């Protein structure tokens, strides 16, 4: 059965490109446009992995990550954080909050696909 991937980002163009990319790799794709919606989707649809943008309205990626990781029922959901802010502190913060991996925008599509597969096989 195909793995489910949730794409949480508020930039429509990025969502379009990620959606196309993930579908082409054979994943089921869900979409959320802000932090609240992302949390709802995760609780309701139980994706295997979330591509989580940090700078989102309503709830930042960090808050979403923290909420998910503190819920034991959702602990096995992988989170890959994406951010356009490349500062080291952001990376460290994301990982400290329990994100499984972290990539800065813009990313190489091959690399992203590799990381996603890697995380799902673990």
């Amino acid at each position, binding site marked *: 059965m195909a793995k489910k991937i949730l794409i949480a980002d*508020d*930039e429509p*163009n*990025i969502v*379009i*490109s*990620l959606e*196309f*990319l993930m579908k*082409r790799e054979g994943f089921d794709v869900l979409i959320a*446009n*802000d932090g609240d919606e992302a949390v709802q989707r995760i609780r309701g649809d139980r994706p295997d992995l979330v591509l989580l943008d940090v*700078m*989102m*309205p*309503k709830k930042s990626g960090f808050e979403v990550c923290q909420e998910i990781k503190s819920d034991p029922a959702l602990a096995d959901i992988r989170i890959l954080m994406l951010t*356009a*802010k*490349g*500062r080291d502190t952001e990376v460290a913060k994301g990982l400290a909050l329990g994100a499984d991996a972290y990539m*800065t*925008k*813009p*990313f*190489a*599509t*091959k690399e992203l696909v590799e990381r996603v597969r890697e995380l799902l096989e673990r």
Partner: protein
Amino acid sequence: MLPGWLIVAASFSYLLVLFAVAYFGDRRADQGRSIISNAWTYALSIAVYCTAWTYFGSVGRAASGGIWFLPTYLGPTLAMSLAWLVVLKMIRIARTHRITSIADFVASRYGKSHLLGGLVTIIAVVGTVPYIALQLKAISSGYGLLVGELGALRDGEGAVDSGWWTDGTLYIALTLALFTILFGTRHLDTTERHEGMVAAIAFESVVKLLAFLAVGIYVTFVLYDGFGDLYARAVAEPDLAGVLVFDGTGSIGYGGWFAHVVLAGLAVIFLPRQFQIMVVENVNEQHLRRATWLFPAYLLAINIFVIPIALGGLLHFGRGTVDPDTFVLTLPLAHDQAALALLVFVGGLSAATGMVIVEAIALSTMVCNDLVMPMLLHVRRFGLAARRDLTGLLLGIRRGAIVVVLLLGYLYFRLAGEAYALVSIGLISFAAVAQFAPAVLGGMYWRGGTREGALAGLSAGFAVWAYTLLLPSFAKSGWLARDFLDAGPFGIGLLMPEQLFGLGGIDNVSHALFWSLLANIGCYLGVSLLRAPTGQEASQGTLFVDIFRRGESVPTSFWRAGAEVRELLPLVARFLGERRTRDAFAAYARSHGLSGIDQLKADPELVHFAETLLAGAIGSASARVMVSTVVKEEPLGLDEVMNILDEASQVRAYSHQLEEKSRALEAATAELRAANEQLKELDRLKDDFMSSVTHELRTPLTSIRALSEMMVDDPDIDIDSRQRFLGIIVSETERLSRLVNQVLDLAKIESGHAEWHNTDLDMRELVQHAVETTAQLMRDRGAIVELALPDAVPSLRADRDRLLQVVLNLLSNAAKFVPVPGGKVWVSLGCDGERIRVDVRDNGPGIPPAQQGVVFEKFRQGGDSLSRPQGTGLGLPISRQIVEHFGGRLWLESTPGEGATFSFELPLASAAADQ
């Protein structure tokens, strides 16, 4: 009336109680639990000012002149209001230099002069021994009143007129001498404090106050029906009218009133007994605070019933029958109140004995240190040097002086009797001690006073006092021919003692006060200004004047050479006793961190210490002479003293500079810290800005890169998708270039490097143009634009492109947020003559209050992600910068749910318009 034995027994019982109090006070002092180390005791002991003269005489004075008894108490009240400034300084000086009498104070100030100390002592003795006699007289006549028949007293004569050996007054005087010797010269102390004596004096103050209040209350409320009743009766008697108005006797006037206030104000500080109690016996400077008001309050309390008693006496006895001075005793006696009369007598006894005791101690210290010791040093220098222990000799001299002073007082009392010279001695005595004021006060506040100046001033003042007050009082007593009083010496009218140089129209005391102080101050200033102070005088002057300013860096002494400890210690021991001296030196060694006397270095400081110790015992002038016998150095010249002082003031100036510098440094540090904080804040803002810019750049790059990579990797993507992706790439690229342009734009405006091309422009045309430019955008969003333009507005000088940019920005913002469909945008232009205003209103969702400030910040776009349109988040910040550049403002009004209005206004006359 009362049996003599009872009165004598009561008197001696009272004196025994006094002994007990003094003994207890000394015991407690020896145990280190002082009972006089107390502000209340101190203030009460100062009330030794109120003597028997006050106790009996005030009523007499009030009976003849109404409120003329009051200057004697108003003067001290005013003087005490300045005590915290003047007396505090005297206390500090006396403590620092171990000054034990007013003679020593003057001598020490003007270069430790024996001559000056002697002169002050003589003035004090001449001025105050008769005053002691007055106290004895009060006791004596009080006794006479109590034992004698009231009727026999109506001629105002004392009952005592038998041989001196039967005179109880002599035995009172001798008892007082014994008391004074016991508690005033128990041992030699370097501070000359007598705790037991002070305790007894404070006790006496309470007794005399209570006794006087008792008789006052008796007369006012028992014999009569309160103040109002007394006054009402007095008003009815035409004979008493003079008591109720200011100048009933019509002789002295306001000038005399003022002179009396001044005189009493000076006396309360310069009377030897007041100096002794207030300055020498002061244990703690802070006690002075309470004394500044408690002592005047005491004076007020003891005077409240003076006028009622006087009125009561006059109403009861009538004028001219009974001496008003005796009303306090005769009123109770006339009403058969023997017990009250006895109490009043004891109160008067306490007033008299308190004065006598303290005065005798003060005078004996002065006589010993400033009169006898210098003579011994002169006459029998070698004899003195040969004797090992002089403590016995010193104590002997003091005790002898006390007995002599009291016997002199008794003798004067026996000789003068009822003579004018004794009765009027109170004010005469005040005028004598007022002569100390110029030398003492001048010495405390003026560095220029010299020894000769002080000598000349004191001598002249004393001479004029004797000529204008003392000799006339002798003449009035019949001891001198009256001719000289009435016609002047040798018939020279201008030299008449009570109308000197024809000055008439004022009373004799004011007259004498004026001439004596004129001569005194004139000579003091004039002679002092004849030459510069010598080294000795300058050094002492500086030490006195700058007593409060003295820091650690200023030398306390001007000895240059040291002396051997084995020479200094025995020298001091000869006057203070071996044990006390060793204790003092050991304490000094400890305070300098040394283990014992053996380790003491023979430096100038030690010499100074020894001199100060000695000064307490034998006076500063003698101490200087004695110490110089072992130190053997030439006296300092003025230049040397000035050098030392200069150095000291340089050190002081230097440390002052250092303080200034360190303050400046602190200020600079604070400034730097603030600047650093500001820089950090700016740095943080810049970091945030960079981070935001990075984010804004990376976001479009992400889509561009991802989409291009996918198209490169996968040639099989269908043509529709490719077309869509390429469209996105193009628009994201546009977004990127727009962003780069705006960032550069903002940076330029903010840094002031932007170029402004100002022209005269018509805002109507500009707004019209902007609306037309955005017409297509509005049509795409299905929005309707309503434009309201006035017929004409004044032209404005500004950069057309920039302003167009602002209006376009506002319009495109509005377009982004209006609902689809049904969007509506209102644009209006207005002018109030000074400013042009543009409003752009939409019917979008509005902006919540919390966000209203935020939308003008960089990279903060309003709206949520779905409705958030393509934008960089820099449009509004740039617009605001532009509007502000032209001196205007840009703001937002919005109620959520009802749309938003962005407005800006520009002044027609803009400061920046021509840039």
